[in-house]
């Protein structure tokens, strides 16, 4: 077992297949990936390339078919690591106020869990309100999810993913359903939060501009079976601004990523063609 000492998240020879027998579908081919602590990694690629699968594997929501997933040097599930997660749907609980939704992880995750009863009306409440203010939602803590717009819900969902100071932050297309302006604003907010707290982030996205803007490292994936075909570092200075995304270096990067994905799709289509018997 060769373990990268610096790696916070490590996938070793990991594969994942759904179903059984004839209908077995390989969602993820043999994959190795190691992510350093405090890194911001974006996974991009066409639909069905196993981006979300990697996220679920690292979070321990699904077990790998073969291979190992390590987080903080221990096998996933056993590690005492706090994980935050946000999805494309905000998935807030409709019966709780926004503040209570944001405070949910504090109710579940140790060591906050033990203090929840005592602190939920004081310290934790202030903590939730401060975080809500940071994403531009001050004053909305007492509202209910159905009273807020999609962009506001997504901000709240981001707060919920961060309230317990996770070492590992999992984002599955969190801005996918938002309009361009809200999205760009939230990129800025997310960058700020990341620079503040430096969690290790794994971001799944379709948006190459988003990946290049936020990440320190972009992994391009291809489909059938899913695997990582390119791994490039993004070293634009931080804090990055939306204006920077129009500079030649940035544009060149997104174009290169785009070409890589297009050619990967071509490969996958060619592989499909070969599978059809003549």
């Amino acid at each position, binding site marked *: 077992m060769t373990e990268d000492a610096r790696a916070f998240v490590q996938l070793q020879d990991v594969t994942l297949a759904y179903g059984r027998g004839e209908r077995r579908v390989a969602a993820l081919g043999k994959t190795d990936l190691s992510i350093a602590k405090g890194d911001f990694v974006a996974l991009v690629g066409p639909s069905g390339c196993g981006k979300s699968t990697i996220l679920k594997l690292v*979070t*321990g*929501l699904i077990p790998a078919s073969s291979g190992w997933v390590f987080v903080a040097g221990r096998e996933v599930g056993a590690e005492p690591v706090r*994980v*935050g*997660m946000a*999805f494309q*749907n905000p*998935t807030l*609980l*409709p*019966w709780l106020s926004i503040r209570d939704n944001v405070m*949910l*992880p504090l*109710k*579940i*995750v140790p060591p906050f869990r033990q203090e929840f009863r005592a602190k939920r009306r004081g310290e934790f409440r202030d903590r939730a309100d401060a975080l809500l203010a940071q994403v531009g939602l001050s004053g909305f803590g007492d*509202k*209910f999810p*159905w*009273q807020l717009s999609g962009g506001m819900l997504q901000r709240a969902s981001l707060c*919920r993913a961060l309230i*317990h100071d996770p070492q590992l932050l*999992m984002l599955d297309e969190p801005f996918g359903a938002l309009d361009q302006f809200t999205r760009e604003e939230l990129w800025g907010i997310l960058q700020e939060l990341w620079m503040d707290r430096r969690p290790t982030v794994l971001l799944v996205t379709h948006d190459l501009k988003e990946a290049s803007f936020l990440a320190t490292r972009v992994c391009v994936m291809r489909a059938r079976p899913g695997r990582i075909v390119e791994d490039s570092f993004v070293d634009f200075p931080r804090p990055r601004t939306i204006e920077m995304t129009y500079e030649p270096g940035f544009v060149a990067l997104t174009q290169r990523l785009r070409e890589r994905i297009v050619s990967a799709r071509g490969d996958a289509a060619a592989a499909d063609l070969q599978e059809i018997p003549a």
Partner: protein
Amino acid sequence: MTPGWRRHLQSAAVIVGFFVLWELACIVFHIKEIVLPRPTQILFTLWERAPAIWPHTLQTLYTTLVGFALGIVSGVLIGALIGSSRLAYDVGYPLLIGFSSIPKVAVVPIFVLWFGAGTVPAVLTAMIMSLFPIVVNVATGLATTEPELEDVMKALRASKFDILMNVGLPRAMPYFFASLKVSVTLAFVGTVIAETVASNLGIGNLMMIASSSFDVPLVFAGLLVLALLGVGLYAIFSLIEGRVIGWAKRKDEFALG
């Protein structure tokens, strides 16, 4: 006058109109009291015999509420079990459907055999009548929880119990309250069945004795009492429902209150 009040007034007018029509029909077609008493006769009987009817009413209400409370407790427990475990679902559902298909009149004699005539068989009948809708609804509410909501909890390493308490049960609440409104009326049915078959107290018993002596107005007075109790309890549970699960109905008053 606000539109809300107007709506209430209109529905009240239709309900009163129904009884007026009944009264008029009885007079016009010379329908005998022994076949169908007039609403005014029923009310008069209720008023005149109130001292005699009152203890029976209390008995029926008490029996129904105790049976219903037992039904809620066991219904939620069984529903939570069936809704959260595959095995319990496979085993529990056929048993429950089979059990609820049995006419409850047929079970009362068994209860009487075990516990003797009186309050206990009535409480048990009310309980098993109200049980089934609660179990089915709680189980459905739990089983239809969105997987994403569970993923959020699992990513936080929440235990199964945490997920049940924080996501499953709150999400099942609208289903639970919908079942309560059905169940409370069923609990009355259960009580009255048992009282009719084997008891010497309660509205069911009163109506059976009254009908055997052809005291039809008293039978109808009993029916009226049952209907009023049923409507009353239904209203109370609707009120609680509105308070607890306003989020599911998205009423503005809930958000402000």
